[in-house]
Structure formats: C-alpha cells, structure tokens
C-alpha cells in the first residue's frame, strides 16, 4: 500500500481531507454570515418578512443620524475605556503583589478563577442582587458602616454605567492578573536583585523595569479585553436591560433591540457592520501603537 505514495503525495491527500471540512465550516459559519449581514444592511429587510428592497446606504445614513445609535456608540466607548483602564490597573497591581509576596500563590490562582469561569449572565445576576437599592449586599454593607442613605445603584445614568463597569471589572480583572503573573514569572530574577541593591523602591522598580518588560503581555491582555468587552451584553441584560433611558445600551444591545424587538433587520445589520468595523479598527490601532513603541 504504502509504496504507492510518496510522503509528499500523502501529505497532500491528508491536508486536503482535513482542510476541506475546515473550509466548509468556516464558509458556512463565519464567512457567509458576515457577507449576508453586509447584504442585509443594504436592504429594508424586516424580521420574518420575505420581501425587501435594496435601498443602498440609506440604513447607514439613518443610523448616523439616529440619537440612539450615537448614544450606543458612546456607551460602548465608555464601557471599553472604563472597564479596561480599571481592569488593567487593578490586574497589574494585584499580579505584582501576588508575585512579590509569594503568599499562597497556588490558592490565589485558583480562587480568582471563579469570577471569570462562571457564566457572564450569572455575573450579571449576582451584581443585580448585590446592587438592589433596599436590601442589596453592597448597600447593607454601606449601611453597616453608617452611610444611612446609600444610592440606588442601577437607577441613575451615571451609577448604572458605573455598576456595569464594576461588574465587568470583577469578572475580568482575574484574567489580567493571571496573564500578567505568568509574564512576571517568565522574567529573569537577577535584575530584580540588582535593582534592590541599587536601592530602587517598590514603585521605581515596577514603573522603570517591570512594566516595560511586560509590554508584550500587556498588549495581548488589552487586545483580549477589548474583544471580550464588546461582548458585555449578558451583564447589561441581567442588570439594567439597557436602562435607565437607554444609558447602558451598548452597540450589541442596540442591535438586539432593533432586530429582535423592532424587527428592523436591515437597519440592525448596518449597525452590526459598524460594530465589526470598530472591533477591527481598535485591534489594528492597538497593534500599531505597540509596534511603534517597540521600534523606539
């Protein structure tokens, strides 16, 4: 049997046999949906109706004039900036602490998995319960400490947005911690000792040495945080349903509302394309900034 095939021929056959199913799946599940969403975005299609007309870029024009869309973009940006800045600061800080103290490191690593391992919808539910105005856990604690009139967390625009950011930070800071910790552990030990001999204090050491050394890890973490932060929908759905006054409705929530509540598939598809563009642009920009710094 074997003598009939050279290794090269065999490789070709195996590759084809394996790659064709992969291509088919990619085509059906990734490429076709993206293309069809683009086609939908040029039509007046509505959910459940079979008739629709091509209306060119009208959906996009309407979109950019719509207040709700502009707000959704702004909300998305607020969530991105707020939660990523918080997560990075906390995550890097805690990772350095764990690395320096060497205190129960294995146990810490396991405990902090919990927020990121449970379903995002459950994270949302947990925070909804914690933030309930009259008897939520947070306000009970605040009252215990003598703050007699704690705020209704999910009822005002600013606090509702802050609450979503808090929940996202709770959920994903562990991810930052674990990756940065892995990065720290891969650094050589000697420079740390040299810095100590030179008399560098905790902050000098970290700002001038540790962080620059971790640049690649930090870049990877930010990229993944951005990707994940655009999928924040379950938190919003469980905690605020986009309210109050649409202030926590990000782009995904906007798309969900337009397509499955108002059945405007064409219109929603146009915003899906914008969401996809934003995702790609953010990742490309991040890539550029970090590559540039590397050159210097």
């Amino acid at each position: 049997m074997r003598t009939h095939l050279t290794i090269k021929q065999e490789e070709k056959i195996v590759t084809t046999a394996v790659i064709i199913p992969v291509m088919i799946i990619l085509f059906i599940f990734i490429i076709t949906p993206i293309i069809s969403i683009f086609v939908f975005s040029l039509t007046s299609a509505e959910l459940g109706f079979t008739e629709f007309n091509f209306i060119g870029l009208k959906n996009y024009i309407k979109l950019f004039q719509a207040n709700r869309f502009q707000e959704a973009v702004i909300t998305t940006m607020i969530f991105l900036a707020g939660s990523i800045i918080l997560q990075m600061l906390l995550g890097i800080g805690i990772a350095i602490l764990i690395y320096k103290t060497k205190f129960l490191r294995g146990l810490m690593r396991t405990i902090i998995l919990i927020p990121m391992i449970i379903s995002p919808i459950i994270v949302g539910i947990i925070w909804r319960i914690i933030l309930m105005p009259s008897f939520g856990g947070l306000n009970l604690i605040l009252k215990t400490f003598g703050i007699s009139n704690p705020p209704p967390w999910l009822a005002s625009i600013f606090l509702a947005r802050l609450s979503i950011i808090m929940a996202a930070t709770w959920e994903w800071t562990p991810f930052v911690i674990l990756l940065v910790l892995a990065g720290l552990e891969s650094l050589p030990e000697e420079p740390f000792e040299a810095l100590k001999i030179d008399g560098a204090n905790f902050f000098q050491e970290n700002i001038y040495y540790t962080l620059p050394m971790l640049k690649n890890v930090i870049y990877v973490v930010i990229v993944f945080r951005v990707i994940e932060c655009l999928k924040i929908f379950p938190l919003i759905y469980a905690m605020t349903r986009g309210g109050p006054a649409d202030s926590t409705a990000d782009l995904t929530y906007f798309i969900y509302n337009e397509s499955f509540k108002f059945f405007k598939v064409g219109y929603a598809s146009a915003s899906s394309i914008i969401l996809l563009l934003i995702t790609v642009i953010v990742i490309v920009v991040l890539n550029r900034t970090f590559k540039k710094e590397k050159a210097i």
Partner: protein
Amino acid sequence: MSILKFIKKKHVNIGNIIKTLVLIVVMVLLLLPFLWILILSFNEELSVFNIPIKLFPAPTFKHYIDLFIEADFKTYFSNSFLASILGVVFAVVVGVPAAYVFSKISFKSNKFIFMLLLLSRVTPGAVFVIPFYVVFMKMGLIDNIIGLGLIFIVITFGLVIWTLKPFFDDIPRSVEESAKIDGCSIVKTLIKIALPLATPGITAVAIISFIFCWNEFFFAMILTYREATTATVGILSLMEFEHIRWGSIAAASIITSLPVIIMGIAVRKYFVRGLATGAFK
C-alpha cells in the same frame, strides 16, 4: 554592619506584611459577591436582607429542592448539557486533525485559514446572530437543541484549533521522524504517537469548550424560547414574574456555576491559554 542588615531585613518584612494584608483584603473582596449569593441560596428569602448581616439567619435547602421539583429546571440543565456536548464533540472531531495538520504540514493557505479562525473568536456574536436567526427560521432550527449545538461550533471551533496547535508543536520532530522511518503513514503517526502525547491537551480543550458552551447566553436567549431553553436563559425566567424569587435565583446560579467551577479548576493551567487563544505559542 550586621545591625544595618538586620534593620534592612526587618524593613523588607514590614513591607511584605503590608503587601500580604492588602492581598488578603483584595481576595476577600473578590470572593464576596459569590459568597453573598451562596448565603442567599441557603437561607429563607428576605431573612438575609437585614442589618446586622448574619451568615445563616434562617438556614434552609428549600431553594435547591424547589429547583429540582420544578420540572423546568431539569429540562434546562439537560438542554445545556446536550447542546454543549454537541458543540464540543463536533469541534473536537474536526478540530483535532485540523490542528495537527496546521502544526505539522505547511501548505499554501495555511496562514490565511488560521487567521480566519481567529476571526471567529474576535467577531462579536451580534454580528452572527441575525443571519443565523433568518436561516434557522427557514430550516425550523429555532428553539431546537441541535440548532443551538450548531451555533456553538462558532464558539468552539477556532478555540479548539488555536489552543491545540501548540500541543502538537511541542511534540519533538525526532519522535515523528522515527515513526516515519518505521513506515508509519501520517494518519498512523497521528493516531499512534501524536494523539496519546496530546491527550491532556485535548481533554483540557474539550473541557474548556464545554465551559464556553455551557456559559453561553446571547445565542441561547435569542434562538430558543421554550423547548430548548438552556440553564443560563432559564434562570432569567425566575426574574420575569412580579414576585422575584431571589432565593431560587441564587440557588439556580450556584447550581449552574458549580459544574463549570469544578471543571475550570481541574484545567486551570490551560484555561487562561484557552481564553487568550492565539496569544501563546
């Protein structure tokens, strides 16, 4: 000199003690939200919502028993389980050989396909859901476990290939070369040598994929409404009524989380790798 050393040493220790204390506080704060739900699930409703806060003001297993008496929740869990298994099995069957080929054989469109796979990880679900909904409606796959399992392929497929490739990369060339010299075909080398060596990786990836599917909410909420409702969607149905049953919601959250917490801890070394798909070589 020795006194100086002593002071310096002591100074470092004080710093360390402060750092450790900060760390402990952080960890407690991190666990607190989850513990709060745990307490809620084991107590009579409303009893927990009093000051001063007590751990077990009125202990009960009622909420858990209620969940299992209500037939709905059993269905939710089995739906979650079946759809997740479907998503995992499919991704592993197609993904494992694919990861092997990507690792060992260089071919023309190798890089291109690999990047496309990353696209499935990067693209927000909101982009996919409308076309899937339209097609599923035509095919009668709405509110269908098989339909949901198919959707989960979007989540698991890229994950399996991206995470497994490094495991195959790690197998030294020499091992496979010697197999080749012994006359093993590529398929035989994969089955006899690569698969056994990569088994821990494959198991871990399968478990991580399962966790991702089990936790999925966005697609499950939109593409199911009664028959195929999963646990993550089912919990919310406890919130829809006028009287929100916080105790049951807490118990359901705990039960839904427990399997993935156990699985996640079992594969914790690989879990972060899986989340940061593509970042590790």
